[in-house]
């Protein structure tokens, strides 16, 4: 009986070690997703909606994976500096101005960008903060 208990504890601890051994990127992704969600709620949700559905023709939905993919390298700049151009999303034109969010630090932009590009049916994966920082320095 004693042997049995010891054996099972041993097995359990091995399983625990394996589970905790997730790679760093998965942990970072989860971290960004949870912080990004809070930022999204505070800054983006009023126009883009709880489920990224947008608001009429006033604010575009965030569910167009193709748009998000083709503009992958511009997303950080759009989030931080806003936009004043026509976007075609799901085949519809959106012309309203998007406000800038100068109060967002680079890490905030990275987190909210990762959240948006991995929610609402999007699945672009993780982008590290350092990469977003470089993108932000090269905004046009």
């Amino acid at each position, binding site marked *: 009986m004693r042997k049995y208990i010891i054996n099972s504890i041993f097995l359990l601890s091995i399983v625990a070690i394996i589970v905790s051994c997730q790679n760093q990127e998965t942990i970072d992704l989860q971290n960004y997703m949870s912080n990004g969600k809070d930022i999204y709620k505070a800054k983006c*949700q*009023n*126009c883009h*909606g709880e489920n990224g559905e947008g*608001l*009429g*023709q*006033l*604010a575009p939905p965030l569910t167009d994976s193709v748009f998000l993919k083709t503009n992958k390298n511009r997303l950080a700049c759009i989030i931080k500096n806003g936009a004043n151009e026509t976007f075609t999303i799901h085949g519809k034109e959106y012309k*309203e*101005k998007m*406000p800038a969010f100068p109060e967002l630090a680079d890490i905030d932009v990275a987190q909210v960008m990762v959240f948006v590009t991995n929610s609402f049916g999007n699945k672009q994966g993780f982008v590290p903060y350092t990469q977003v920082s470089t993108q932000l320095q090269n905004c046009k």
Partner: protein
Amino acid sequence: MNKIISSIAFCLLFITILSSCQQEKKLPFYGERHAETVKDAAGVEKIDTVYQTIPNWSFLNQDSIVTTNKATDGKVYVADFFFTSCTTICPTMHRNLMTVYNEFKTNPDVMFVSHTIDFKYDRPYVLKKYAQKLGVDGAKWQFLYGSKDSVYTLAEKNYLVAVGEDSTAKDGYIHQGYLVLVDKDRRIRGAYDGTKEDQVEQLKKDIPVLLAEYKK
């Protein structure tokens, strides 16, 4: 046997009394009130409570047509204050108000009135574009433009909603996000925070209650 019958009868009587005691639900009255001596139809003097009412108004709507209180007279309506370039609470308010609008779209006794507080930029054609992009068409939901003085006075004195210019605010204006429910006699019967979904749900429940008051 007699005992059983009488006890059943007693129970039934009790239930009838209880159920008849239920008062019909009425919405409260907002704002100031005072007592006034009025004469009823038979010419008998009596004391009645007079509630605060929305005064006459006249503004330009999204089609640049002069619109007055005649548009809402005899109707239950929801009023709010917003501006088109607002990026904070207005999108949420109007997203939620859209769901109310859609629910009562076919009811001719219900109307919606949105006043802009941006007297500099929100000219009627700007309001028209905004309404179209929001997905509103027709006269059921009026977007009204007026001078700063007329709109701000109406908001604060009559609808009891705080509005103001504020150069430190992100978009240049501050205001409360209340959706104000007004009855057919221009009295305020409810105020709901348009940014909170549960309060907007309550508004959807209260509109039929208010309409029912007039169906007697």
